[in-house]
């Protein structure tokens, strides 16, 4: 069987001379496995095995005492999952609050970082400007720094007497107490038009144990500061991706459209945007995948407070397991989050695979050749 696979691989590889040198390659089977063995052991032991263990724990009520793999640990079946969705109670309310918070977070972070990254890439890609590489590095630098260290800086910037409020003060605005302010931004907007308390229709009866009024809160003021931090740190990375995409837009095409009398906006709208559509898609999906994983910033800056408005599923799963010692529930939350992220990843990879098979036809100008196998 092994030889079959080998021949198949060799044929599939399609490199002629290799087949002749079979004598040299005879011990490659053993060597190959020895070479990959350390990686297999480490990833198997600390990635695959733990996922299976957590799957088991999510079906139990293990409280952290002793080993979760003995008969003493109460097996509860799917209860840890059902209490997140169907049973009214604190667990569901917290979980749904965290989902709501993260949805608003994604809804702001993803568009904001995409637009900012594209804008920065367009400016940095401008051939008439000097010193671009300095600015490119400056925009990218926050992306490589420690999320914890940068969160400390933003804690200071958004402190009550911090830089952001000082800046707002120059503009005559009285800044909020960012990390103590649990008011939802949408609620504040409703309040601005005179709707301060929930209308009767929204006061109760929303899905999954939260009222419609709660679902419509919008991100809290505290969450806005975390959103600002994340957009600020991630835009640089996505800017580099857009830059790579922009460099694939042939200059001749841009010049041709200029000759045809296209305005700058028309060139952007009808030449640049369509040409970088694959990159845009990549940035949007990577952004969504990343935004569901926000953890470090929440841990350092707010720990889910104020009033649970910066709680995210990732942080909630950590808190449920390691602070409340309810490892089963925590693991169940992790797996729901896992599912959300995997669905997004599958959508992304599908679309990228389609784009790659499309490429030879319409991607004549692309300098990169996909090496995916």
């Amino acid at each position, binding site marked *: 069987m092994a030889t079959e696979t*080998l021949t198949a691989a060799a044929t599939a590889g399609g490199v002629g001379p290799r087949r002749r040198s079979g004598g040299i390659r005879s011990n490659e089977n053993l060597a190959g496995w020895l070479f990959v063995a350390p990686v297999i052991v480490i990833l198997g032991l600390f990635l695959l095995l733990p996922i299976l263990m957590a799957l088991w724990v999510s079906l139990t009520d293990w409280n952290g005492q002793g080993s979760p793999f003995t008969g003493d640990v109460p097996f509860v079946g799917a209860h840890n999952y059902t209490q997140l969705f169907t049973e009214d109670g604190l667990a569901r309310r917290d979980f749904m609050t965290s989902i709501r918070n993260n949805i608003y977070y994604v809804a702001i972070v993803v568009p904001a970082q995409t637009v900012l990254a594209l804008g920065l890439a367009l400016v940095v890609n401008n051939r008439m400007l000097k010193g671009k590489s300095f600015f490119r590095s400056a925009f990218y630098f926050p992306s490589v720094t*420690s*999320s914890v260290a940068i969160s400390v800086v933003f804690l200071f910037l958004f402190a009550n007497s911090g830089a952001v409020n000082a*800046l707002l003060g120059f503009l005559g605005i009285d800044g909020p107490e960012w990390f103590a302010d649990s008011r939802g931004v949408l609620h504040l907007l409703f309040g601005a038009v005179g709707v301060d308390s929930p209308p009767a229709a929204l006061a109760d009866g929303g899905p999954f144990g939260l009222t419609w009024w709660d679902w419509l809160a919008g991100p809290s003021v505290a969450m806005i500061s975390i959103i600002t931090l994340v957009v600020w740190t991630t835009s640089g990375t996505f800017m580099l991706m857009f830059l790579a995409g922009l460099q694939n837009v042939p200059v001749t095409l841009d010049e041709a459209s200029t000759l045809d009398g296209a305005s700058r906006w028309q060139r952007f709208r009808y030449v640049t945007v369509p040409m970088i559509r694959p990159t845009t898609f990549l940035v949007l999906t990577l952004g969504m995948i990343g935004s569901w*994983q926000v953890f470090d910033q929440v841990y350092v800056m707010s720990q889910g407070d104020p009033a649970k408005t910066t709680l995210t599923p*990732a942080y909630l799963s950590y808190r449920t397991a390691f602070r409340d010692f309810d490892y089963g529930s925590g693991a169940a939350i992790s797996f729901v989050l896992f599912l959300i992220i995997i669905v997004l990843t599958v959508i992304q990879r599908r679309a990228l695979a389609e784009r790659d098979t499309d490429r030879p036809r319409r991607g004549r100008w692309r300098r990169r050749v996909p090496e995916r196998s």
Partner: protein
Amino acid sequence: MAVLTDRPAAAPARRQQHAARTLATRFLGYATLVFFGLVFLYPFVIQIGNALKTEPDAAANPLSPFPDPLTLAGFERIFAGTNFPLWLGNSLLVTVLVTIGRVFFDSLAGYALARLRFAGRGGLFAAVIAVMAVPGVVLLIPKFLVLNQLGLYNSYAGLVVPLLADAAGVFIMKQFFESIPVSVEEAARIDGASIFRTFWSVVLPMAKPALITLTILSFQGSWNEFPHSLVSVQDPDLFTLPRGLADLVSGSLGKGTQYPLKLGAALLATIPVAIIFVVFQRYFVRDANDGSDKG
């Protein structure tokens, strides 16, 4: 962007108008660059300035980068009043071990997946791609479970061993090895060199750019690594820098906000990565662009 200059057909009037527009574009371009340059760099300037201030000064003038009076008290307290030196040592140890491990193990596996023909190779590569999609944050509880079960919880081994290999690194190395011409190593093999010998003395030296990229990424990744230390240790003697920093912020300092101290500690934790970024910038940029390829 692509405003063309010296178009022979253009009438003089149009050319003049054109030149004015070019100038305006350029001005607007620089204004945007400088504005965003400030947005992205000024927080670091504020951080450095305020780390050197007294606490009342930092509270009163948070926007000013100039300390008045300038004081090193914050830094003195970092070294005298916190476990910072210990965290620094732990971080160095973990980072060095993890970087060495990743570069070595990822290259070995990347080479095997790129060049060696063995049963199950295709399946293994598919597994590597699948593993890259597993989000780190959902592994918090799982990692704790396995470390606990293996008796590695609260130990240096627990901090280091799980990070010794990563799928993305294997992927980078495999892609690079595939781009090296196969003829050189075939010559070595025909001369009777063993597979490992060929890999070690012929292929690896040619893979220097990829090795540098991987070294930098591993260094940066493990130096900044936070969630893993959160679930693998709880003994303060085993804290790494990000963990210690998070601990400082969440109130282990006691009285006052002590922002100069916190900003200083965060600054010291950022410096090594900043130096590497400045020196090896192009390798960072390469990585981000690879990212757009691998998806």
